[in-house]
């Protein structure tokens, strides 16, 4: 396990008391984001996202399967995340632990609750055959803020996914039917200070974490509070506002990267 020296925490706390972060960013400022799509030829859709040095690849695979019994005319969507040992000296090989599971479920919720994928358009034979969308998130380099990188990579991948109808003799391939993507923004709190897009150092000393997914209308689609610290109601409202503002900017960048 990598140990965080205690003086690092004091240093970051002191800086924060003077309104600063160690890399010079404002409290609600994101690091440089880069989005690249179509990076995996075998996947029906894929994207690589970098936020600062954090790097995530998300790949979309599709297959035909049975619908859930309670929604016989809807497609199926699942999200999985792997914190592979490649990405950090602290990630161990083995079945996903709670961090990976929480990450996958939070990304999943953001996408599902925003109804990004029009699952009712993914029915082939009601009750029998529907399209299944598998979102697989692979963390390659961990330098803070996996939630937003994973979510953004998955969105970019979905926005460039083509349903592989040809492979199953169901006509021509066509773009996956989608609505507006929700953008996820994560903040952490340490020593009474709340910052957005935490770097690795900031995550290491974080007491509480809040991820907010907002849509194009500035409405809320998913939220998740993590770690064992707490937020005041006021802090939560501030975070939501900053998430809506940043969400809008990131959405523009996302659309540009997929050619919209």
């Amino acid at each position, binding site marked *: 396990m990598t*140990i965080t*020296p*205690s*003086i*690092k*925490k*004091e240093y970051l706390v002191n*800086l924060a008391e003077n309104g*600063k972060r160690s890399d*010079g960013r404002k409290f609600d400022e994101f690091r440089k984001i880069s989005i690249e799509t179509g990076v995996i030829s075998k996947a029906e859709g894929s994207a690589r996202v970098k936020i600062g040095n954090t790097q995530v690849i998300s790949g979309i695979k599709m297959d035909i399967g049975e619908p859930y019994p309670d929604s016989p005319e809807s497609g199926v969507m699942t999200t999985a995340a792997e914190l592979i040992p490649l990405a950090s000296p602290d990630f161990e090989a083995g079945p996903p632990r709670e961090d990976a599971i929480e990450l996958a479920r939070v990304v999943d919720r953001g996408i599902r609750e925003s109804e990004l994928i029009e699952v009712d358009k993914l029915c082939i034979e009601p009750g029998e055959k529907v399209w299944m969308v598998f979102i697989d998130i692979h963390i390659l380099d961990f330098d803070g803020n996996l939630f937003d990188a994973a979510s953004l990579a998955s969105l970019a991948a979905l926005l460039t996914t083509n349903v592989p109808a040809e492979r199953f003799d169901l006509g021509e391939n066509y773009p996956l039917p989608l609505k507006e993507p929700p953008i996820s923004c994560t903040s952490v709190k340490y020593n009474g200070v709340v910052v957005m897009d935490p770097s690795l150092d900031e995550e290491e000393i974080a007491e509480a974490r809040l991820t907010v997914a907002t849509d194009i209308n500035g409405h809320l689609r998913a939220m998740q509070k993590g770690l064992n610290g707490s937020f005041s109601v006021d802090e939560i409202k501030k975070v939501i506002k900053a998430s809506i503002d940043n969400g809008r900017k990131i959405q523009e960048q996302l659309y540009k990267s997929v050619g919209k």
Partner: protein
Amino acid sequence: MSQEKREIVIPSQLLGDIKNIKAGRGTFVENGKIYAEVLGILNKNSNYINVTPLKGRYDPIEKDFVIGIVEEAMSSSWLVDINAAYPALLHVNEVPWDVDFGETERYLNYGDCIMAKVLQVDQEKKLQITLKDRNLYKIKGGQIINVEPSKVPRIIGKKGSMISLLKKYTKCRIFVGQNGRIWVDGDDDGIKKVINTIDMIENEALSYGLTNKIEELLKKEAKDVH
């Protein structure tokens, strides 16, 4: 200024013959031929061929000054991370305090930083460090920067020239551990400047005239402020 040839070699590269020259650190010998064993800089003089590694963890040498981070407090010793392949042991006999059995946590705890000296490296690579020396203590305040251990000589500079420059222009206290950990203390701007300058030195460590370049840059920044 002598123009040392900074040739970079890679593992398995043929460097010489033991008939003509001795094999030093960073090389291995097979069938009378000397090869590089690590990615590094070739140092060849009339007697030896050495390769100084460009990357990798710190390789502890006795008497080196290092900055350690305490991993675990045990009943009569502490386990300390010094960026080597193994943690180092700090025994209660090697600290300037009178520590009772089981009372180690009162003095040093998980996450504490210390300036220490490498006391012993045995054959099984078991490492021991000590705090019993002038200038060794538990660190308070400031920030820690991590660099590749191989870049430490460059950051210190010939006869400390580079580090003196940094201290002069940033008015910070700076301590460079041989293990690639650097401690800085001063005002916010000074610390930031040190971090940025060290970053630049790390990236351009192999270029010539770096000390002059850094000096010019620091001078200019100081003028700009006034």
